[in-house]
């Protein structure tokens, strides 16, 4: 994968040498793991090398895909960037935090959580992970707004209405509990909530998995439009090349915790090099 210096192309998110090991974090755990060994489990220590040596940059307005099957480590990478879990090693930097000079992994958990207000937002496969289902759609959006200091009830409602309009949720549903919403609608509310404070970086973890094909297509259309018009730097994690193809320009292929191939999405789809990539592409072609 080509690297860009900040001078040539300003990145919004930079990940370098990211690793996450469950169990013994010593180098001994690395031996015998990875795609060439067909496993992420260390034969000597039993540790799981969920992700290792993952590096990439994402520029504003760009979307990067991470593809792999379950257990490949793609979601682990996303959770480490989001701060939902701690990386074992490596660097994560956001342009919006001290102009990218701070490794987020060095921050206290409380400081990591604060970044989720304005600097980085995530949309999860399960809406219950990103939303409170027993709160109205408007109330869910009020959460990030009040967290950064919004104190006008009418102002919050106006902003929530704007966002819901943008994700094509009828305003008549604004005061309904999210629990009463369909899966696709919940996902739209989750996207609206993630965009509430105009974060420069957006993480999407299997955003359409589990939705009916027609519903998923609608959400993907919406996301593509949003990524184009907002200028957000996005990371899209999916097992589905269809999703990656629709939303991203560049892609990393992960297997057994390692990146096996990376490149421009359309080129990789056209001419996959690694056998695993070929397999994934073949699967997507049906």
């Amino acid at each position: 994968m080509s690297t860009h210096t900040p001078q040539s192309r300003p990145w919004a998110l930079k990940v370098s040498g990211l690793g996450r090991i469950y169990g013994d974090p010593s180098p001994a755990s690395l031996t015998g793991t990875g795609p060439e060994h067909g496993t992420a489990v260390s034969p000597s220590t039993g540790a799981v090398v969920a992700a290792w040596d993952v590096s990439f940059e994402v520029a504003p307005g760009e979307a990067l895909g991470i593809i792999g099957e379950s257990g490949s480590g793609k979601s682990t990478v996303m959770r480490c960037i989001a701060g939902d879990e701690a990386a074992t090693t490596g660097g994560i930097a956001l342009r919006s935090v001290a102009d990218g000079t701070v490794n987020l992994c060095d921050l206290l958990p409380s400081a990591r959580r604060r970044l989720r207000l304005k600097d980085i937002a995530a949309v999860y496969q399960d809406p219950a992970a990103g939303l409170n289902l027993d709160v109205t759609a408007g109330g869910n959006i009020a959460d990030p707004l009040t967290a950064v200091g919004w104190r006008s009830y009418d102002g919050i409602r106006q902003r929530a209405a704007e966002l819901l309009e943008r994700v094509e949720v009828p305003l008549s549903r604004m005061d309904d509990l999210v629990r009463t919403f369909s899966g696709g609608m919940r996902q739209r509310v989750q996207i609206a909530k993630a965009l509430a404070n105009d974060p420069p970086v957006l993480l999407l973890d299997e955003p359409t998995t589990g939705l009916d094909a027609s519903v998923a297509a609608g959400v993907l259309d919406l996301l593509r439009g949003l990524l184009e018009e907002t200028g957000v730097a996005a990371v899209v994690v999916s097992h589905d090349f269809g999703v990656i193809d629709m939303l991203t320009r560049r892609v990393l292929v992960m297997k057994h915790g390692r990146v096996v191939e990376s490149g421009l999405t359309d080129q990789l789809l056209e001419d996959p090099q690694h056998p695993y990539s070929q397999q994934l592409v073949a699967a997507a072609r049906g």
Partner: protein
Amino acid sequence: MITPAPAPASAAAVHPEEPAWLELDQLTERLNLAVDRAMGEAGLWAPMLAARAVRQAEGDPTEAAHLLRAHRAALPRLAVSVPVATSELRVVRRISSAFRNPPGGQILGRTVDYAGRLLDLLPEDEGRAHVTDEPLAPADDGHLHHDHDHDHEHSADPVAVERVPGNVLAILREMGLVAPLPERPDDPEPYDITRRPARPGAPRSAWLQTMARGDTGSLVHLWWYGCDWRPDHEIPGELRHGALPVRIAHPHTGKPVTVAEVRVSEVESFYNVPRAAAQRHLGVGYGICFGHNERKSIAMAGLDLALAHYDADSELHHDVLLTLDGLDSTGYAQHLKLPHHVEYRSVLDRAEAAGQDANPPGETA
């Protein structure tokens, strides 16, 4: 609230219409389980004070425990006792449901366990069938002496009764069924729940203390409630009732000096199977409380096992640490009897205002 104690000897003379108060030794000897329960829930060993508390609380053990604890709060803490191993326990009763005949024998002691629960309509002195007082009933005898004359109830030879048998858990350790004690035990200063409020996440010493002085009924309920959904039940490897010395370091020599003796009920329970195939040892749960209160120490040992099994932020940890104290729960119930009309007016005002509010909910501004 520290009301003048009635003078038992003269009460009848002053108020001939009022029944006489029970003597303290009547309470400690004849209503001993009530006195023990008050001491256990108070977390204070003081039999004569506890008897007085039971008398002044008109037999309500929770109220008696409150009197004892409030009395204790008036006194300074002068010293902290040194740890004592319960292998020193001089038992008056000791049974093991894990072994037919454990070393040291089954010592049935004083219990109602084996008596038919028949209300005796004869004066108690003549009936006497309701309590088994069999200080030494060897297990290999297999015979419980139900129909013996129990005249020796209070004349049992103390030398024969008080014994220091081997600890069943130690036998299980030797058999390799229970994890050996660490050579250098991780023995931090125990959490002191009387000085630091115990919150979920507190260490085992905090939950053991909380249960040891918890309300008996609440504790038994919480344990039994869990028996419904926890996968397997535990076996009390050993249940003992007996006396332990209390020692403090001598202020001048620093050497431990025995200053008192307390009676405790102690239970060590374990699961009948290892919980995971990879786990070689049986989990052990521990229960102990002041006085003779077997169901409390059994429930405590069962809950201790369960607590070790669940995360510190589980509901069980929350319930054990925050809902078992009798003073807390009854205090909350008591407070509902106080006037609340200032609050009530405030609630009513909001209810009326919400009713009057003309704006239909959800109208976007």
